[in-house]
């Protein structure tokens, strides 16, 4: 790298990330992040790994289908001289997979990815881990706002929470052993948005939103775009440490329901609430285990530390809820209009490698994508 100019060097300092590996490319966050990073010309390589095909259309991200095997991952990391790894594959909703698979993914998977980045001769200089607010849990004697130094007052109650606490412990351990690597952990509050599918968006789609009788928990959300931008921010800028990611404003559940224009249905009994899981399921509502306590006690996160790092949220909790309300009203009109994307390895191969494909068409560049997001 003899011929590096001063401009290039300053650019490199601004964005540490040049060669990024995204683990969990096929998850919602992995795909969105890859799409976002593709717009930065200074990022020269984006590699995504997952055990399933990508679910989003990507232009220049290289996809490698690989399971959580640390030896293979390590070969990819070294061969591609990856300097930044973004781990966006955490399972936070226990209904999406079996508990065993969630454990395999969250704990064993994290361990393997860290093993692939370990070693004194590893090219990795930055590791971003997307964690969850489930780390703190929801209990009666919680503080109103969790700050990053706080730990949960009681041991985890559900398997998924236990897995997340364990996964974070392995990441912190890695950070301690590799002082040269900048490790960023982002603990995200519950996500809300038109595109993402969570237990909460499902619940808010019902005409009557179930509540626990006699409880009105405090809820904080974060908009899906803000999470993507936060992952991007962590990949582009130096931000060592643990950060909460939650929008401004903690709303009462009743307030959220009225913003959505729905009606509250305080039908769940305050004692033995989780016994209602069966009857609710037969009504088409599935509530994951880790959500029961949140429906009673709620959770608030202190989001000031990441803001102090220079990150700006686009939406407050209230605005995120209003965005969802807008989407819910439009949904019947737009239904079916968005065509799904299916990954075809041969097509992608042709588009990227074939000499017949005309690249660098200026009109195609400017017409489609808007400006990269300014942080």
């Amino acid at each position, binding site marked *: 790298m003899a011929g590096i100019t001063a401009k290039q060097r300053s650019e490199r300092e601004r964005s540490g990330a040049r060669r990024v590996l995204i683990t969990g490319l096929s998850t919602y966050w992995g795909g969105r992040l890859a799409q976002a990073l593709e717009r930065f010309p200074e990022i020269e390589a984006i590699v995504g790994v997952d055990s399933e095909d990508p679910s989003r259309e990507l232009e220049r991200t290289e996809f490698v289908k690989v399971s959580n095997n640390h030896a293979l991952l390590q070969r990819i990391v070294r061969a591609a001289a990856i300097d930044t790894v973004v781990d966006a594959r955490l399972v936070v909703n226990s209904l999406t997979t079996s508990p065993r698979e969630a454990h395999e993914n969250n704990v064993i998977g994290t361990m393997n990815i860290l093993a692939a980045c370990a070693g004194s001769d590893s090219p990795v200089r930055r590791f971003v881990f997307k964690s969850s607010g489930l780390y703190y849990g929801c209990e009666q004697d919680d503080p109103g706002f969790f700050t990053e130094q706080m730990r949960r007052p009681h041991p985890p109650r559900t398997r998924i929470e236990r897995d997340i606490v364990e996964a974070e412990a392995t990441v912190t351990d890695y950070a301690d052993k590799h002082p040269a690597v900048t490790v960023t952990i982002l603990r995200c509050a519950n996500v809300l948005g038109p595109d993402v599918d969570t237990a909460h968006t499902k619940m808010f789609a019902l005409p009557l939103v179930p509540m626990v009788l006699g409880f009105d928990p405090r809820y904080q959300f974060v908009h899906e775009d803000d999470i993507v931008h936060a992952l991007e921010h962590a990949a582009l800028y130096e931000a060592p440490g643990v950060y909460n990611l939650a929008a401004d*404003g903690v709303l009462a559940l009743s307030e959220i329901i009225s913003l959505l224009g729905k009606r509250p249905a305080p039908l769940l009994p305050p004692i033995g609430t989780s016994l209602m899981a069966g009857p609710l399921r037969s009504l088409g509502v599935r509530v994951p285990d880790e959500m029961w306590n949140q429906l009673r006690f709620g959770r608030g996160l202190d*989001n000031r530390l990441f803001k*102090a790092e220079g990150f700006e949220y686009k939406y407050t909790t209230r605005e995120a809820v209003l965005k969802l309300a807008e989407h819910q009203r439009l949904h019947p009109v737009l239904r079916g209009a968005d065509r799904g994307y299916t990954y075809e390895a041969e097509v992608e191969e042709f588009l990227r490698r074939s000499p017949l494909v005309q690249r660098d068409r200026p009109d195609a560049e400017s017409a489609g994508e808007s400006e990269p997001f300014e942080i």
Partner: protein
Amino acid sequence: MGDRRTSLAPGTPAATAGDDELASGGELVRREAEMMPAIEPERTVNDWGRSERVEGVFDATVVEFFYRYWFRTEVEGIENIPDQGGALLVSNHAGALPPDGAMIARAIREEHPRSRPLYLTVEHFFKGYPGFSMLVPKIGCVAAHPANVHRLLYDEGELVLVFPEGRKGTEKLVKDRYRLRRFGRGGFVEAAMRAEAKIVPVCVIGAEEAAPVFAQSKLLQRMTGLLYFPITPTFPWLGPAGMLAYLPAKFKIRFLKPIDTAEMGADPASDKALVQSVSQEVRARIQENLHEMLGKRKSVWLG
């Protein structure tokens, strides 16, 4: 780095502490205070779950009735409540389901020139109890967690009321009236010191006679899962409503001269001896004033 750190003024004044490490720590916290979420005027419920609407209804009906007509509350020393900035109010506490907190909040709203809102700290127990869990935050109560008190005092600059006697005060029987219990472990002093807030001692008389507790039943407490099970003139005989059936004792509230913790040097909260002596001083002042007020009182009911 460009302008991404514009929101952090480069010339943030460093904390006055001499030590370098402390100064940088102080600076970080100060910076965080600037990152507080903006207030959204469209909302009627704030981040603590406090609802203007519910509080307004509650205040205009139940609290108004008790404050003005039932307890005929008299207030002294309202000028000791600062006009702005965080202050920690420390009061004596008594009676089954004590009415003193609500009366102090009402007194400040009524008498203080800026009618500042007051946050009451309550046991975590309430958050787990259906019904209470919904109502209690809406009328301005927060769980008594040191982090909550710190955020309210330091970052939001609000008035916070604590009862350092806690459950020991409410469990107290009528024969021990106006004898202050132990003031916890001085946690309230530490909270005020860390937040550089003033401590305002508050004395309340009347609450002990309004809801006298003749006995505590351990057995019934265990059977009902309540915090404690008091036997009062009306409870449990009238059912849960008996908790609210107060006797019409005359209330007097006196706010004492504030103690400024900001003048106690750098990081006073780590000095355990100082914390304990401030805690004892607050306790002694309240006890002394209680004796004086009781000495002047001619009648429990007429004042």
